[in-house]
């Protein structure tokens, strides 16, 4: 089902954040795989920031994604 617009914006913000900082693969993938990858990356970010690791895009996680920060990824090689 299409996400309600508010959720849609949050989801897009989260996807952009995870792609930039947690190496979420870009581009189209199978529905199952992309949902799994998304949840894994949410968990990775929650673990980095010592949030409760749920794999879900909860308010705390979304709030942190909106904070001003450095543009260098939190994981892996940066080039």
């Amino acid at each position, binding site marked *: 089902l299409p996400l309600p617009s508010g959720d849609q914006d949050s989801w897009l913000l989260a996807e952009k954040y995870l792609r930039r900082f947690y190496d979420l693969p870009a581009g189209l993938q199978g529905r199952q795989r992309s949902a799994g990858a998304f949840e894994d990356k949410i968990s990775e970010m929650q673990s980095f920031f010592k949030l409760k690791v749920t794999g879900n895009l909860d308010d705390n996680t979304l709030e942190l994604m909106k904070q001003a*920060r450095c*543009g260098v990824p939190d994981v*892996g090689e*940066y080039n």
Partner: protein
Amino acid sequence: HFPRHLKWPNNNVTFRIENYTPDLQKSDVDRAIRKALNIWSDVTPLIFKKLHVGNADIMISFGSKEHGDFNPFDGPDGLLAHAYPPGQGIGGDTHFDEDEQWTKDSSAYNLFIVATHELGHALGLSHSTDPGALMYPVYSYTPGFPLSEDDIKGIQALYGPNPNSKKVKPKPDAPNKCDPMLSFDAVTELRGETIIFKDRFYWRLHSQMPEPEQTLIKSTWPSLPNKVDAAYEYPEKDQVIIFSGIRMWALNGYNLVDGYPKYIHKLGLPKKVREIDAAVHIRDTGKTLLFTDEKYWSYDEAAGTMDSGYPRSIEVDFPGMGDEVDAAAYRYGFLNFFHEHIQYEYSYTSRKVIRIMRTNSILNC
């Protein structure tokens, strides 16, 4: 650290500031970057040399949105800056988002704080999960010394500690500008600003700055000693001369002039003079007055020689002023003498003290 523990192969690292943000004066950007680099050189053997042309290891620039590295910024807030780990080409380069408001205080994004973080990346540090660490990815303004144990452990794992066993300075107990008994060590003009030295700190006064800004001397001028006895500006050469003990330094802005420090006796002072208490250049006459104990000397800058007939008595030539001076400044025909917690405003034309104030009245106290 970054994968493969990327670091610079040797401890001499060059940097170059390619452009400047319009949010701050150029000198403020220079100072913020220099301060940020000094934070890292304080705790490692690293030495940073500034280049003005050509390719440096760390190229520093301000840009917005897509700024040439296919890693676009995102407008105000969000991404503030980024930097690349040590390496050839873009390695070490540090970019600040021009769409942010860069400041010297906590009112918006403090350039010194962000620069110290980004230069941590440019030296090989990745992000820290410690919220109290400077290398934590989310911006927060914290006054004082910015590095946590985590940051220091991280950088020293790459480069080792500072060989001069320079202990990281604990949060310095800065002098209180409104202490009624406050006295100054030295005062000078610097390109239209007033610089007041006290202990290891200096205050910077500017007509457009409501509050004096206090900074560690070594954060801005690492080659200067922790204690300044006297200072004056010689505008004709755009230099500030700093005295400490029997040595003197010449500064051009934030850079030390080649060939300094020198001994004060080069000016023609006798060897028995071991310290200058105060110094001031009188633009109208071209003379620089040097105060030591109860006497003073007059130095002719253009001729580069000491005037004959000196030293003379301070008390005789500057009646009403007491016989010793801690610091002196000359502005708009008035000589301001500072001695202990008293400031004397002396009219050079009518040759008399016309006002007596507290020393720290100059600091809006």
